């Protein structure tokens, strides 16, 4: 099987599964218990937290383990808005955010906040001028994703950050679910206040992730209870998942530059190949994340291509796993104004360091065959 759908999820690393088993066997106490066993388990949890804090360049008190990207995004949106509500009630998000940000923002709107959307250009990139126009002195939160999950567009995070800093007192949240492990992500590289990371997109386990804050930022909880995770995320901390998250983050971060260079040359090669078809339009912008290639075939439904490739044991996706089950057109593709005869034929290839050049070559052969059958030429 050739798996080119790594933006939907990735295969868990063997080493990480081993860690999960060992922690469940040896350190399964409740880290909040005051007996030695609990204390020891807590030491492991704190080491995991400290390791993550070191990678992200913040303090360990600002790392909150969660159930994944969606929870972290919700925590960031509601938690930050609530904490800093005295600064205003205006919220800015880009129009191509993940549903876990978009829907949370809609909820804020229902609660009476003033939510505005930053438009993107045809490359899926927000313009600094738009941010500048939309920012107000009562803007409390700005949330912009680092890399878009459907087309791989990279947002100019630091330029947005400096304009936010100059013009408002808003806190700046960045959803880094698609960018972590593909480019360097930490509070020194990106001048943001909050970062969301999901484990299963970086060969960790499903159901885990985290929200990290810059050391000067505070947040209110959205889950209430026993006060675990410094009171920000109640519920017994799943130590095995937290440890695996820390490990996935370390592994993904340790070879990020080499992996990115390799992925870039693989996807450049695929784009070059796809451009030889007259009926194909590349949707991913020139400046894109190294692991995502989005393209569209004129007059063919994306689903047809996916099914045809699947018969040949090649797994790809339409725009994204979250929106591919919905019948309506993706909000991202709408936002970048894809022409009508292409918009239904979008296919997304997403790679991980586990993919090889041999797989790319094999894909090219299969794809040529499949297209000639479908298009009949």
């Amino acid at each position, binding site marked *: 099987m050739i798996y080119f759908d790594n933006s939907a999820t990735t295969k868990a690393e063997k080493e990480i599964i081993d860690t999960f088993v*060992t922690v469940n066997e040896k350190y399964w106490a409740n880290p909040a218990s005051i007996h*030695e066993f609990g204390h020891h388990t807590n030491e492991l949890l704190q080491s*995991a937290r400290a*390791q993550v804090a070191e990678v992200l360049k913040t303090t360990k008190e600002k790392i909150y383990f969660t159930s994944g990207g969606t929870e972290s995004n919700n925590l960031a949106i509601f938690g930050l808005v609530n904490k800093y509500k005295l600064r205003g009630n205006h919220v800015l998000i880009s129009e191509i955010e993940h549903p876990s940000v978009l829907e949370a923002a809609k909820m804020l709107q229902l609660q009476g906040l003033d939510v505005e959307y930053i438009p993107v250009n045809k490359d899926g990139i927000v313009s600094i001028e738009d941010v500048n126009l939309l920012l107000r002195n009562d803007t409390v939160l700005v949330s912009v994703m680092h890399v878009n999950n459907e087309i791989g567009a990279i947002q100019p995070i630091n330029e947005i950050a400096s304009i936010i800093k100059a013009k408002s007192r808003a806190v700046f949240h960045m959803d880094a679910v698609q960018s972590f492990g593909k480019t360097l992500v930490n509070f020194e590289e990106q001048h943001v206040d909050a970062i969301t990371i999901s484990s299963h997109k970086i060969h960790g386990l499903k159901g885990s992730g985290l929200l990290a804050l810059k050391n000067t930022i505070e947040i209110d909880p959205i889950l209430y209870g026993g006060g675990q995770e410094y009171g920000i995320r109640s519920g017994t901390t799943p130590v095995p998942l937290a440890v695996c998250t*820390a490990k996935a983050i370390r592994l993904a971060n340790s070879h990020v530059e080499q992996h990115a260079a390799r992925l870039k040359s693989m996807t450049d090669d695929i784009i070059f190949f796809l451009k030889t078809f007259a009926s194909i339009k590349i949707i991913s912008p020139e400046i894109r994340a190294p692991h995502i290639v989005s393209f569209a075939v004129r007059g063919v439904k994306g689903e047809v291509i996916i099914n045809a490739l699947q018969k040949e044991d090649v797994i790809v996706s339409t725009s994204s796993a979250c929106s591919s089950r919905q019948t309506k057109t993706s909000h991202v593709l709408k936002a970048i104004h894809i022409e009508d005869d292409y918009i239904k034929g979008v296919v997304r290839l997403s790679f991980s360091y586990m993919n090889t050049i041999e797989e790319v070559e094999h894909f090219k052969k299969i794809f040529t065959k499949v297209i000639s059958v479908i298009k009949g030429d």
Partner: protein
Amino acid sequence: MKWEKILIRYGELSTKGKNRKSFITHLKNNIKFSFIDLPNIKMTAERDRMFLTSTDDLEIQELIKSLPKIFGIQSFSPVAACTQQLEDIERTAIKIIESLDHQDKTFRVTVKRTDKRYPLDTYELQRTIANHVLRQFPSLIVQMKKPEIDLRIEVLSDAVYMMAEVIPGAGGMPLGSNGRSLLMLSGGIDSPVAGYMLLKRGVRLDAIHFHSPPFTSERSKEKVMDLANQLSHFGATVRLHVIPFTEIQQSIQSQIPENVSMTTTRRMMMKIADLVREEIGALGIVTGESLGQVASQTLESLTAINAVTTTPVFRPLISFDKLEIIDIAQKIGTYETSILPYEDCCTIFTSSCPKTKPKLEKVEYYESFKDFDELIKEAVEKRETYSFPTKKKNEFESLL
């Protein structure tokens, strides 16, 4: 920003006559101790300043982060280097100002022209660079007296050095320049702060802690070990002596009337501390006592407790308010550990109404019925000793 070297200003030590040389040696050793894992750093010490250089930019960054913790440094500045080319000097000046918080700050340029052959004279160079910087950063306000940003340029024959930022150091005196003392470390908020104050004046520390298993848990001991470890981050090893105290506490409990048992307990602790102090060759004992804070810290109590020894007992917090102490504890990072809620030997067996004005003669009379000296000797012999900083635990490494 890429820095060439770091300039360190000594501070108080610059005023110390003949001892200067030994102070500088101590400071050098402390810096070396803190940067044992940065192999490329070179030091050159001058009369009133020191330069640290490294070929590795990351090491310089690491230094900038850790130098503020080392005692004996008044302030330090990262220094950039460039060629004598005017464009190069201008470019470097811009980069330096950019790296600082420069919005609406007052500003001046100071030039020292050591290479007298340099074509522009001091004033010309000052004006040229200042003009260039002001064009780039129009919000800067020129002010010759005490500006917030003082861009200092030194023209040498082979290079030009430039700096603007002055980062405050920890002050105080280099560790080891004032001998060794023994700190009574309870695990509360005050004692680590008292230790820090002595460290700041250049005193090396050993710490002593009283442990009463099974009434006090392993965790309360670990808490004290954490505190000792945190104190070692200020630039010198800290040894911790853990005294088995259960037996002594139990015999106090059975021998001494309840309302003065606390006073006797403290007196026994002081006796033990004094024995340990003698053994390790320390000169004084340090406590975190603050006048009137609790029953054992009234003047009468302090007198009764102090009567067991003639060794100088230092109480740097004697006149501090609790809130002032908490402030320092938070600043030096021991507060979070100190407030962990484990029972220690002072909170078990406590009397509900201890005497705040114990009479020394009475206390001595009650104690005379029991031979505590034997128990004390035994406790000192059976003590456990730990040394900090310890290497990190590797137990979890394979999992993470």
